[in-house]
């Protein structure tokens, strides 16, 4: 569904991503993990069109998307959330979702219908009239997901949607992710919460220093010595 081919991204002289390639298969949850500064969010920003890759190409359902603008990529069916939650602060929860629902809605009535459906789906219906600035973090993170879903994507990029949640919020969010998957939406997830990753992802890609160092099922990744080294560091006898 998504083919990332030999992507490199330079900032100044520094390579934030070097020669990264992978594919996302329709319907799966692909997790992207790696230590701080490994280039995960940069990769999202490249897929999402915020950055143009320095080298390489990205194809989405066969269309080359590495040279088109963010809003057009969204129209093609890729939606994302942000690591730092960015709801439209002074709008109500409902209005936030309506604003994104407009992309595929013919009129306001239809946009409202879509928004209501999604609020129910994500369990935010009761908070629909709250100004989003006043929501607790767990719900704000969910609002981000709701907003992305309102653009009716076929692929969803979730950037640390679980960070900072308490255990009960975490479980609610995991349920929602499973429900989204059941709808047939493909997902790429950046996450530090290893338990979540191991529980929900079909495959995992590990980045370190901007390079892909491993790819496999959760079980394989958990045993991969290179991954363990990237995370735990190599032992020195110095």
């Amino acid at each position, binding site marked *: 569904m998504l083919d990332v081919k030999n992507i490199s991204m330079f900032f100044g002289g*520094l390579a934030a991503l070097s020669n990264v390639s992978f594919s996302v298969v329709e319907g799966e949850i692909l997790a992207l993990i790696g*230590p*701080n*500064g490994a280039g995960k969010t940069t990769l999202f920003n490249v897929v999402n069109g915020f950055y143009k890759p320095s080298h390489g190409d990205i194809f989405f359902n066969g269309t080359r998307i590495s040279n088109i603008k963010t809003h057009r990529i969204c129209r093609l069916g890729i939606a994302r959330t942000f690591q730092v939650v960015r709801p439209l602060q002074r709008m109500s929860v409902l209005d936030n979702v309506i604003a994104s629902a407009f992309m595929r809605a013919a009129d306001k009535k239809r946009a409202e219908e879509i928004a209501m459906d999604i609020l129910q789906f994500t369990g935010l219906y009761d908070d629909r009239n709250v100004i989003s600035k006043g929501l*607790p*973090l767990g719900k704000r993170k969910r609002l981000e997901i709701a907003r992305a879903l309102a653009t009716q994507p076929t692929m969803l990029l979730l950037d*640390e949607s679980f*960070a*900072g949640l*308490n255990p009960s919020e975490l479980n609610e969010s995991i349920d929602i992710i499973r429900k989204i998957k059941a709808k047939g939406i493909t997902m790429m997830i950046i996450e*530090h*919460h*290893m*338990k979540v*990753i*191991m529980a929900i992802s079909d495959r995992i890609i590990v980045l370190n*220093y901007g390079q892909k160092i491993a790819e496999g099922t959760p079980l394989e990744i*958990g*045993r991969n010595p290179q*991954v*363990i080294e990237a*995370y*735990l*560091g*190599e*032992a*020195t*006898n*110095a």
Partner: protein
Amino acid sequence: MLEVRNIDVFYGDVQVLWDVSFEVKEGEVLALIGANGAGKSTTLKTISGLLRPKRGEVLFEGSPIHTEDPFRLIEKGIAHVPEARRLFTEMTVEENLDMGSLKGEARKLREKNKDMVFDIFPRLGDRRRQRAGTLSGGEQQMVAIGRGLMAMPKLIMFDEPSLGLAPILVKEIFNVIKRIREEGNTVLLVEQNCKQTLGIADRAYVLETGKITLEGTCASLLNNEHVKKAYLGV
């Protein structure tokens, strides 16, 4: 020397630390390890006054410092080598070092201490007039450490000094930290790089999603299966 007692810390309305307590004793290297997002940097920022605990307190040499203005802590003897180095990129290497020694005794001994830093990191001596932003990642980390040492602190805190560095440089940095300790300094080291860290620390605490889940001597932690779980969740 430093005592952190039951602190709860929030970013806005997000709680990041839950009831964290630990102690750094004079002359030791204490490590705080944990995966991404476990709250390690938050802990250091709270100690250096950039964040305020909602509950709990931080004591340095017996007196509370969590209510102090952050810019006073360096005078009290706490230096913070921040995550991602945070150099003054438009200033030269030497000016960055000057910035580390604005106050008191450190100001008087500035030139002497600079020689000491250049002795530890000869490469910086060659580049003393170069703009810090043009240095390589490893050299920048050296400047950051040097800047911390310039304050002649009683306690020096390192926040992920290995971040983004190639393994050989990581080794070099860790050797320097060892040397700093051997000269009698107290060190609080925050790291993701667990094996290497445990190799040089006396004791360690493991942070997991904002809570301290393990503590002990490094030897005991090195072989603990739970440490691996804390990182990989397997």
